[in-house]
């Protein structure tokens, strides 16, 4: 049926608000800060056929992948075996969960007159679901069995009542049952509210009008995505990146994992083809297929309709091809703990591929990895064991008319916040000695890449341990585009009290001694356009502001600065730039 445009808009806003209410209820009731501070979750309303109807932004790499969890539920439990008042839970990376074990999915069907007419869904990170060490993030597992307790879709509530068997199973398999079960209860409350909100709409506007509106909303999502695609010239666009691999630097499990993609834009359709991507890794850098699709959808969204709400229709013009048994579609029981690492690069790579077609919508590469790090030990001030889990923020690439953004969290993360220095010094037995932008990390360009940052922690009064996993260092530093240069890649340096200095990309459980200094140094973004075309006055300002050194001004940008008056030496600059162009040309 056709719904009038007014009722349609009212219902659209109600459904978007309903998916927001799932988030609000969970935030209100959740136990652990990882849910409400790191915003490591996503929530959505779906129709009975598992099409995404409305979504509330959370972690962007979770975009639109709850669809697959609903499908797994139908396949595993059977549609006919679902009853009003049931709530489903799953976390299996190969059945319903599709990320890694700590991520829990909770789903609640909306029954109206005895039939399912939609779903409320939530995916969120819990603190611990078992596995070899606490936390679920491992650089060197080789099978999913090592990574935690797995649940395929199961009924955690049955016909309006908690299924205590499942609660007991989870309690027995997590190291922190109070917090994990508390978070799961919050998620259940969230999806039950979302499901009820959908029923409220059906009750108020009628089933036929509601379903008609949902169909129309998806149709409009499709139309808007096609309209955006029609503004991208037809063609085939390719890009690839080589990841550094998993395991530790001193015991690698894989090396040079190839991420390859080919984007075909044909009228109002886009195909993203990952053929040629490396076979699955023996280590945990494997991304289950639905999460790879999610990453491709993320790239598609930022290229087409970044400011519009998402629904299944928005992704109808997108087709994704993923080779079987690759790191982007691994076969059971490949390990998946580091599933976000490969796909953090996918949306970035998609921007790189389409750059020739839409030069004003893209930027140079970003620093490329969330740089997850963990420091842990016993706080000498309290005698309590502590674990600090963080990501680090780095630079984004230059744009067609301005420099790149400095020090933002990676594309895998969204509205995530760093830990303030003043908070860190209270919470952890460290002294933060520096938190600054790191000079010369931004890739030179007509528009420079944003700077990476440097954050230095000195361990005080105790010995500690550290795990860090950083990719995009050796093989694919942050790339420049249209003649822009690479940004400097990320690295972790350890300065020992005895004067020793070490560099690490990936390392597990590295001992830190009292007084050692750990310096997390994130990469900068890649440049946009040739640095020889950068306005010399902007180069001068960068030197005055110490974003770049005078040496970089001369060597990368061909700009000679007269000191101490701090002026551009026009003549010398012109001469130097001509020489540099000539030598590049030759």
């Amino acid at each position: 049926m056709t719904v009038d445009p007014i009722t349609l808009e009212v219902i659209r806003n109600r459904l978007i608000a309903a998916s927001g209410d799932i988030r609000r209820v969970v935030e209100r009731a959740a136990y652990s800060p990882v849910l409400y501070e790191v915003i490591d979750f996503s929530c959505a309303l779906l129709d009975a056929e598992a099409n995404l109807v409305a979504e509330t932004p959370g972690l962007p790499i979770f975009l639109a992948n709850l669809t697959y969890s609903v499908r797994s539920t139908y396949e595993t439990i059977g549609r006919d075996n679902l009853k009003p008042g049931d709530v489903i839970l799953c976390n299996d990376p190969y059945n319903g969960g599709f990320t890694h074990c700590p991520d829990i999915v909770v789903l609640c069907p909306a029954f109206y007159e005895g039939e399912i007419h939609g779903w409320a869904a939530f995916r969120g990170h819990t603190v611990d679901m078992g596995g070899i060490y606490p936390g679920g993030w491992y650089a060197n597992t080789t099978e999913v069995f090592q990574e935690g307790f797995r649940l395929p879709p199961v009924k955690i509530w049955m016909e309006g009542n908690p299924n205590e068997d499942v609660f007991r199973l989870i309690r027995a398999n997590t190291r922190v049952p109070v917090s994990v079960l508390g978070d799961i209860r919050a998620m259940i409350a969230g999806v039950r509210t979302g499901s009820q909100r959908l029923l409220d709409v059906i009750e108020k506007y009628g089933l036929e009008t509601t379903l008609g509106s949902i169909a129309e909303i998806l149709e409009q999502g499709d139309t808007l995505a096609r309209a955006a695609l029609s503004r991208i010239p037809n063609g085939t666009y390719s890009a690839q990146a080589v990841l550094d691999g998993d395991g530790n630097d001193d015991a690698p499990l894989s090396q040079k994992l190839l991420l390859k993609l080919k984007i075909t834009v044909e009228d109002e359709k886009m195909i993203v083809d990952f053929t040629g991507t490396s076979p699955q890794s023996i280590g945990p850098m494997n991304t289950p297929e639905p999460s790879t699709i999610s990453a491709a959808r993320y790239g598609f969204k930022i290229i087409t309709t970044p400011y519009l709400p998402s629904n299944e229709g928005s992704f109808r013009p997108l087709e994704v091809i993923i080779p079987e048994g690759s790191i982007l579609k691994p076969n059971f029981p490949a390990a998946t703990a580091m599933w976000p690492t490969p796909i953090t690069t996918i949306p970035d790579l998609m921007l790189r591929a389409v750059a020739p077609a839409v030069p004003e919508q893209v930027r140079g590469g970003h620093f490329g990895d969330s740089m997850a790090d963990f420091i842990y030990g016993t706080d000498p001030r309290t005698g309590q064991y502590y674990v600090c889990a963080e990501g680090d923020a780095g630079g984004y690439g230059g744009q067609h008319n301005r420099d790149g953004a400095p020090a933002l969290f990676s594309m895998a993360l969204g509205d995530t916040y760093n830990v303030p220095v003043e908070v860190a010094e209270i919470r952890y037995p460290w002294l933060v000695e520096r938190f600054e932008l790191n000079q010369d990390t931004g890739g030179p360009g007509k528009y420079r890449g944003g700077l990476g940052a440097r954050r230095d922690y000195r361990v005080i009064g105790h010995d500690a341990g550290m795990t860090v996993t950083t990719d995009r260092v050796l093989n694919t530093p942050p790339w420049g585009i249209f003649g822009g240069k690479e940004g400097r890649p990320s690295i972790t340096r350890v300065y020992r009290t005895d004067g020793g200095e070490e560099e690490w990309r990936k390392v597990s459980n590295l001992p830190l001694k009292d007084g050692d200094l750990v310096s997390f140094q994130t990469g900068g973004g890649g440049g946009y356009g040739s640095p020889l075309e950068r306005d010399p006055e902007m180069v001068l300002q960068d030197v005055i502001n110490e974003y770049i050194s005078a040496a970089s001004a001369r060597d990368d940008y061909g700009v000679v600065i007269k000191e101490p008056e701090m002026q551009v030496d026009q003549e010398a600059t012109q001469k130097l730039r001509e020489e540099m162009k000539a030598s590049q040309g030759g």
Partner: protein
Amino acid sequence: MYRLSTDVGGTFTDGVLLDESTGQIRLSKVLSTPANPAIGTIECIERFDVSLEEVSFLAHGTTVVINALIEGTGAKTALITTEGFRDILEIGRSNRLEMYDALYRKPDPLVPRHLRFGIKERLSAAGEVLVPLEVGNLDQIIADMKRHQVEAVAVCLLNAYSNPEHEDKIGKLLQERYPEVTYSLSHLITRRYYEYERTSTTVQNAYVTPLVGSYLRHLEEELAKRSFENVLQIMQSNGGIMTSTVARNMPIAMVESGPAAGAIGASQLAGLIGYENVIAYDMGGTTAKTAIITGGMPETTDTYAVFERPILLPVTDLREIGAGGGSIAWIDEAGALHVGPQSAGAAPGPACYKGGGTEPTVTDADLHLGFLNPDYFLGGEMDIAPELAQEAVGKIASYYDISVDEAALGIIRIVNSNMSALLQSISVKRGYDPREFALVAFGGAGPIHAAAIAQEMNIPTVIVPLNSGVFSAWGMLMADLRHDFALTHIQAVDEAEVGQINAMFKDLESRLREIFKQENVPDEDIVVTYEMDLRYLGQEHSLTVAVPGNFTEADKATAGQAFDDLHYSVYGHNAPEESKVMVSLKAIGIGKVKKPELQAIPKGGSTPASDAEIGRRRVYRGEGQYEEFSVFRRDKLLAENVIHGPAVVEETTATTVVESDQVCNVDQYGNLVINRK
């Protein structure tokens, strides 16, 4: 004697004059003068034509701070901070607010990197001096600042919240060696941790200090010329007022002054007529703002920001959406109809304003439907054109091939639905049930839509105050002086020494009293209350509970229990057995101001006088149905009059709609109280 208030808004500057001897209220409304809001303010005051000698109290709310922050017209500002941390201001919290925008960047910092100076010094979180302040560094910094002709300096050192010694020393040296700049020290603005937020607040304060200084000087000179002899009071974002002397050093505290005044007005009014829990609903030209008031006070938040730049001070917690009278109805590429957030603003304004606007707005739809009276807009002072409204709304109608009436009704339904969705989510987030609240509606467009929104949300009561179109200005007359001081001190409550807690409270209190002394508030009018931010061990988020200023051993348990209860009501669970940690101590100082008494209006019978009902209007209700609305003049209504919906009540600055299944009672003060039949 008179009491007077002026509220500068984006479009209009409103004034309210209260005659203390009779309780009578007069209003004035002039166009704002954004280039120098003082001009419009003086014009607004002159309209009353009273001698300012007879004005005993003058409160002023202004957009001068927010405009400077939005337009980037503040002073050339430098920042002095701890060596190694000068980029805190630029890095911020590293969050990507627009996560799907590939080209997202945060707004540039207000201080460029070469004017951000690191100085050698270091304090620990506990306030111990780890590296003494190297004063020698400062001479070089001052030389650099002079070379760059810096006009204002912000000083924010790491951990200075726990020990202000180094900041104080820098302040003293700046005063001696660089007297021509104004400077702001972070610990005088707030002594809470979170270095980025504190730095951002201090920088924004420094940035607007020179400008606000000259604005206030200009305004006070103009007032003095007109024989004003009393103290100019400035409305703050926290819902209180402060004297202009204090405002000169803390201008950032006035960033949201107008909207805060509306919330204060709503809470004061609700209290006077017996409602504890209300939702203030202020719908103006471009946005609709709401604030939740429980227990008689608007809630404040610490997470306010302008242009993503945080301000770590208590600001009245206002949620807004881009849905005002000027919000534009538009059709997207897929053919879907939306309303807002784009607004026709003051220029060109809604199509019916005849300012050249051709896009259909909410006001055009209200006019077309018959909710607004073309002959009585702003009491007949403004000439509006229904045919232009019809033409504009007609564009929507012809696109969908529906009647203009249907299109106009559709625009209103969408805007009301967006509003109720916002109210619902605020309530869900805080764990409130909207059915336990009354809606206080004001602003130019609030009372037209309030009744329908209340109906949709099952809110039982709508209150439309007298003079609802200038309600924020009225609210300023009801505000007390208020100052907030906070101090971060993290320690398990059980381990804390009562003596130390009381010493910290005493310190906060003495700072409050010092400020009140500058403001000439007599001791007997000062009320200080104390609060503690608590959390469970291991949690990051804290909640605020009230505690006595003379804190005893027994109060530890009382405060802990109050926290457990609050945690349950906010988050739906608690853990009484867990140890509690205090995060911040807060003192709130109120300097009581004598409030005007509400003036009762003459009493009438339940049936309004015959001259109150001025006609009937046919309004489209959907599905081809029209309904006759009775039209009343609000100034002819008497206390105890009862109006049965459907009805429209018109006044100079606003129009109230009473829906068919609602009944409206005029209370003893002339407020309209609308309930379900």
